[in-house]
């Protein structure tokens, strides 16, 4: 059922929750748009899983409001048919086969034509040849793949993935990452990804929120966050490092350059106009400087994360 315009896939407004007089979430607000892959980041104990549990209706908020597809999942059994969930334990029985596990959930979600859907998903996650094996004989990575297949079995509109790469080797992490992107595109799902893997989040998420000390410290698109802070910066490597001082002096006089510093074999120029990179290159070439490489400077999500989580810990 298509949602009315303006309804976010996930909406959290002024959410607060405490356990045993300890504030876990304080006035947390963010929204996730339809079709986004949203990364929810934070250190251990920050309240990420608590947020997901409140969104899923498993815990009640002390204050604030949460909505998934415009509904309160705690009070609306039918609305839960439109969401999928993958917790760290995968929600699978070790004593049932892959097919048996998926058939069970297909029954709970009243999936149409379950045999065909199960075949399709087992092929997609590469477990078709192990379909009748007991899940207890699977590796951690295979269980996670089957867990993802289980989570999207009923074609949910929003899927919550809690640490999907946790405990996996790098190869399996990549496989899970690729699978999430593939599923997001193919099934047009909104993905709410709770993860510690900053590299994974940076690669696949469109928007992130960083939670620390019970509060949202950052909420923005990955593109905006990883662009250089404040004014955009460009790193220019020169063929002759001896030209750096002269080039820096020349560039510093350009109107669209706010600052210039020598760095390694070249310069780091801070631009007052984000679109002035071609003009900078033209000016350097025009002044007969030989350029080897030009690249926009960006910060990694890890730097941003550590900056905000670190400051939150200091404040705490």
């Amino acid at each position: 059922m298509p949602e009315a315009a303006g309804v976010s896939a996930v909406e959290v407004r002024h959410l607060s929750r405490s356990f045993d007089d300890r504030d876990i979430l304080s006035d947390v607000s963010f929204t996730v748009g339809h079709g986004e892959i949203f990364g929810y980041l934070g250190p251990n104990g920050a309240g990420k899983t608590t947020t997901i549990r409140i969104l899923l209706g498993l815990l009640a908020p002390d204050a604030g409001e949460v909505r998934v597809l415009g509904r309160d999942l705690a009070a609306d059994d039918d609305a839960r048919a439109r969401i999928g969930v993958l917790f760290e334990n995968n929600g699978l029985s070790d004593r049932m086969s892959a097919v048996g596990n998926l058939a069970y959930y297909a029954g709970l979600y009243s999936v149409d034509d379950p045999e065909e859907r199960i075949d399709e998903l087992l092929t997609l996650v590469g477990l078709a040849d192990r379909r009748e094996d007991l899940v207890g004989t699977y590796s951690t990575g295979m269980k996670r793949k089957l867990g993802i297949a289980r989570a999207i079995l009923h074609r949910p509109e929003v899927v919550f993935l809690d640490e999907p790469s946790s405990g996996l080797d790098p190869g399996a992490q990549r496989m899970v990452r690729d699978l999430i992107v593939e599923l997001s595109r193919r099934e047009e799902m909104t993905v709410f990804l709770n993860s510690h893997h900053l590299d994974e989040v940076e690669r696949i998420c469109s928007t992130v929120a960083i939670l620390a000390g019970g509060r949202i410290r950052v909420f923005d698109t990955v593109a905006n966050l990883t662009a250089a802070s404040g004014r955009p910066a460009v790193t220019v490597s020169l063929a002759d490092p001896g030209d750096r001082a002269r080039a820096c002096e020349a560039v510093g006089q350009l109107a669209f350059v706010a600052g210039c510093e020598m760095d390694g074999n070249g310069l780091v120029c801070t631009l007052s106009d984000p679109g002035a990179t071609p003009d900078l290159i033209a000016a350097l070439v025009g002044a007969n400087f030989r350029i080897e490489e030009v690249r926009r400077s960006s910060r990694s999500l890890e730097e941003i994360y550590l900056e905000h989580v670190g400051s939150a810990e200091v404040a705490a």
Partner: protein
Amino acid sequence: MKTFRVIAGREMRLALRNRSVLISALIFAVWFPVMSALGIAAAAGEDTTAVAGGIAAITLPVGVFMGYLFCADAFLREKRDGTIETLLCTPVSLRRLWEGKAVGVAVPAYLMTLASAAVTIAAVYTLSSAPIAGEPLLILHLAVVVPVWIAAAAGLIGAAQLALGMRENQILGFVFIFGFIFLIVVLQGVAPGGGGLSVTTEGIFAAAGLALLALARFIAGKVTKERIVRTIP
């Protein structure tokens, strides 16, 4: 109704695949009646009513214990594994989940109890030659009273296992078993005729079983998802 069948069917299949629980249940189903049969045959001799009463008296504790054995797999194991959290996110209500699991536990527990009763009847018959297999009140007891008590035990123990932490469950599991046995002994004591097989006794036990079932349903209705999630280890 469909989800109820799906949940109950799955619990029954898992119960029948769990070798360790099945072996424990089978040992108990054979050992306990054989030991009890000696006492019943010695005390009741060839008095059919007394023998049938003795058999009826031991089937209830056996049924409750079977319910406890199978509950550990259906409720406690899913909680320990955390699988219950995923199930709570499905479009199935907590009450329906509990009902499906309780019935899924009660059916194999009942079948084991019937097997145990058959062993008891065979052992007593061998020892006393009392023709008890066709005793109408014993059949009524096995067909109505025993399943109601097993369903009540499975429902109560299951609800408690969902609501309590793992440590509390370890302690209270035995409290439940002994609580049920104590209740059975008390009811046998207050029933006219000293708990022998009679319409009145069966009526009292059936009413008590239904009351326990209602109590289980009431308690299960008080268990919240938050309570379950916060007691997952």
